[in-house]
């Protein structure tokens, strides 16, 4: 069947099972928009800025595991999408971004709205394509979805010149895809797994360190089973939260810069570290020279390049986290090797002593709203079952610390790139995927302003996201670093002219609530949560002096944490 490029694209998206395309029209993609208009299988979501489209697709992908799809025009459409593409790239989120391009004969002539989209996105995509011949379009789209979703996932850009969307070619949906240069491994090396098991069972002070790869690899159940069968302590990176039940006794909380005291001390003291789907990010590791000084390290990861990139590991296992954990579990059931129960009992006793420090306690106030108290109230009122999307800053850390996730894919945040403006559109992407679930957006007065325009999109599609803005009048994390490390020179971190957020929300057609007393926090949250059909913007006026503790300063070791001093 002969179809135009634009028809091929729409048909392909339908055949690929794509539910939503998040996008914004423009000159180079008008043939595509004309075809979108004539069909209703794929729903197009009109955003208000291309960055919003990428974060929405990203939030959708993080919550569902399915690839997010974005459609933008050439030039500024593509450049506006770059922040969102880089955000997805850093956190290995499957995404396919279709960018319009000027017609093939105009490429390279500095045409109107022309940029080298493939060149600009190259360093922040898993792969990208420029489709110069309509005959290649179908195969290229199939490859794009295959590359984005397999192995270590990531964003893929497909740049389509305008003439290619008008020219015709045969279309048959390709069921298979073959790429001789791309064959990601899945099964781990049997010998390595055996060696790892021996080391794991022989450990006297073991520690499991799990990351976002467990969530991406859909292996939360396997992780939980392995860890519970071993009875070992486990910590998680920011990206991995929820993969292991956050309220379980074996879970020591997040590790790293704002991790718990017990998690970081256990990292420092362990003799065997089992890293699963984690990439030894600098915010986790601190000073590489002081990292886990007594430990033999096992690292399970699908990406060989993640292994021994930052920290030299002793037993690398390249493979899908799920496959490797399944094999480990099978081997665990048949092995005769016993754990060192006495050593383990002593190790747990030590961990409980660290835990007894209660490093997350804070002085609650009956007057000023403490940001931590807002998160605790949200946890209580949603029974820990909400989808929580967050922006970037202090509020993000408070959410990670005070909302112990029960399940994976509930915690949606920009961990790697740390993109302010991510929270609201990401929460909206989640709400598209799960219209009946509670989706909360934790944000701050700084971050929310970076993609505030998407409130209009939320109105257009009736998305009842609950926005919890922890408004302290500062760029809180910047202010905290300035207080600690820059002589309290609060350079440009004070937000002097904030809008009236209640009126702002109302002007977009939403409900706005301003909460400035500690006693009103729960009531406001209850009211917001009971409004099932409304987007509610809660402007919590919080204690401006509050800091995130504990803290491991950049370049320090896990055993050198700053703890909150309570009066």
């Amino acid at each position, binding site marked *: 069947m002969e179809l135009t490029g634009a028809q091929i694209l729409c048909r392909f998206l339908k055949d690929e099972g794509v539910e939503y395309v998040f996008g914004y029209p423009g000159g180079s993609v008008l043939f595509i928009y004309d075809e979108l208009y004539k069909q209703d299988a794929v729903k197009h979501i009109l955003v208000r800025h291309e960055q919003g489209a990428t974060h929405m697709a990203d939030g959708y992908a993080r919550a569902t595991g399915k690839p997010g799809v974005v459609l933008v025009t050439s030039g500024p459409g593509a450049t506006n999408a770059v922040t969102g593409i880089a955000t997805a790239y850093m956190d290995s989120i499957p995404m396919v971004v279709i960018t319009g391009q000027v017609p093939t004969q105009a490429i390279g002539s500095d045409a109107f709205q022309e940029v080298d989209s493939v060149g600009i996105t190259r360093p922040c995509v898993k792969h990208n394509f420029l489709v110069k011949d309509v005959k290649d379009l179908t195969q290229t789209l199939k490859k794009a979805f295959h590359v984005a979703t397999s192995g270590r996932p990531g964003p893929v850009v497909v740049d389509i010149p305008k003439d290619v969307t008008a020219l015709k070619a045969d279309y048959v949906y390709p069921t298979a895809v073959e790429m001789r240069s791309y064959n990601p491994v899945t099964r781990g090396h049997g010998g390595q797994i055996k060696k790892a098991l021996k080391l794991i069972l022989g450990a006297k002070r073991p520690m499991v360190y799990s990351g976002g790869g467990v969530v991406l690899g859909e292996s939360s159940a396997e992780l939980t089973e392995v860890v519970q069968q071993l009875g070992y302590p486990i910590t998680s990176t920011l990206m991995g939260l929820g993969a292991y039940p956050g309220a379980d006794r074996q879970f020591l909380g997040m590790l790293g810069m704002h991790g718990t005291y017990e998690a970081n001390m256990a990292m420092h003291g362990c003799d065997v570290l089992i890293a699963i789907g984690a990439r030894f990010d600098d915010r986790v590791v601190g000073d590489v020279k002081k990292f886990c000084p007594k430990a033999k390290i096992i690292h399970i990861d699908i990406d060989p390049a993640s292994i*021994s990139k930052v920290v030299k590991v002793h037993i690398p296992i390249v493979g899908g986290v799920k496959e490797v954990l399944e094999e480990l579990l099978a081997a665990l059931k048949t092995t005769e090797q016993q754990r060192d129960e006495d050593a383990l009992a002593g190790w747990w006793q030590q961990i409980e002593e660290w835990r007894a420090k209660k490093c997350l306690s804070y002085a609650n106030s009956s007057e000023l709203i403490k940001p931590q108290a807002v998160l605790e109230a949200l946890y209580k009122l949603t029974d820990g079952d909400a989808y929580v999307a967050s922006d970037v800053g202090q509020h993000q850390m408070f959410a990670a610390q005070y909302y112990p996730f029960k399940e994976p894919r509930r915690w949606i945040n920009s961990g790697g790139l740390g993109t302010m403006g991510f929270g609201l559109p990401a929460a909206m992407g989640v709400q598209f995927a799960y219209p009946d679930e509670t989706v909360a957006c934790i944000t701050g007065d700084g971050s929310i302003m970076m993609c505030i325009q998407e409130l209009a999109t939320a109105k257009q599609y009736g998305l009842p996201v609950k926005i919890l803005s922890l408004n302290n009048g500062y760029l809180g994390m910047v202010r905290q670093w300035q207080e600690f490390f820059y002589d309290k020179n609060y350079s440009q971190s004070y937000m002097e002219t904030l809008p009236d957020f209640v009126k702002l929300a109302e002007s977009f057609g939403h409900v706005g609530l301003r909460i400035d007393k500690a006693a009103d926090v729960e009531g406001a949250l209850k009211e917001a949560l009971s409004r099932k059909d409304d987007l509610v913007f809660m402007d919590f006026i919080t204690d401006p002096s509050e800091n995130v503790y504990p803290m491991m300063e950049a370049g320090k070791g896990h055993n050198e944490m700053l703890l909150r001093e309570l009066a």
Partner: protein
Amino acid sequence: MRHIIAMLMENEPGSLSRVAGLFSARGYNIHSLCVAPTEDPTVSRLTLVTREKDEGIVEQITKQLNKLVDVIKVLDLTEGEHVERAIMLVKVRATGARREELKRLSDIFRGRILDVSSSTYTIEVTGVGEKLDAFIDALEPKSILEVVRSGALGIGRGTKSLRV
């Protein structure tokens, strides 16, 4: 240490810039780079020479290259026995008695005179980098008019071969 990394990749526009971009983005050093299609026009072979003190970085380089979607195979030739060659073309001033002397020098280095004018020779020399350096050193510096050198090409010794 100096490493010669050989790779096969899809012969597609942009493939080379992915490799070059990887090196600049991650701060790896490229000493030289040679790329051309192979007997299979859909496959390019790329040979790059890098000098990194830290062997961990060399390991990262090969892993990151392997990770590029267009890259089919990567081999660090310096891990095994191998042959390497580079080519150099030198245009030198050649007048009077110096013409005969340059011809002899070229013969010593198994060079070939490719082009002759009344006052110049253009000499081709192939070999490993040190040999090419030695030829340059043997020439009178003032007589050198132009030098063009390829990067190293490499191939493993014996029956094993790097193929798709």
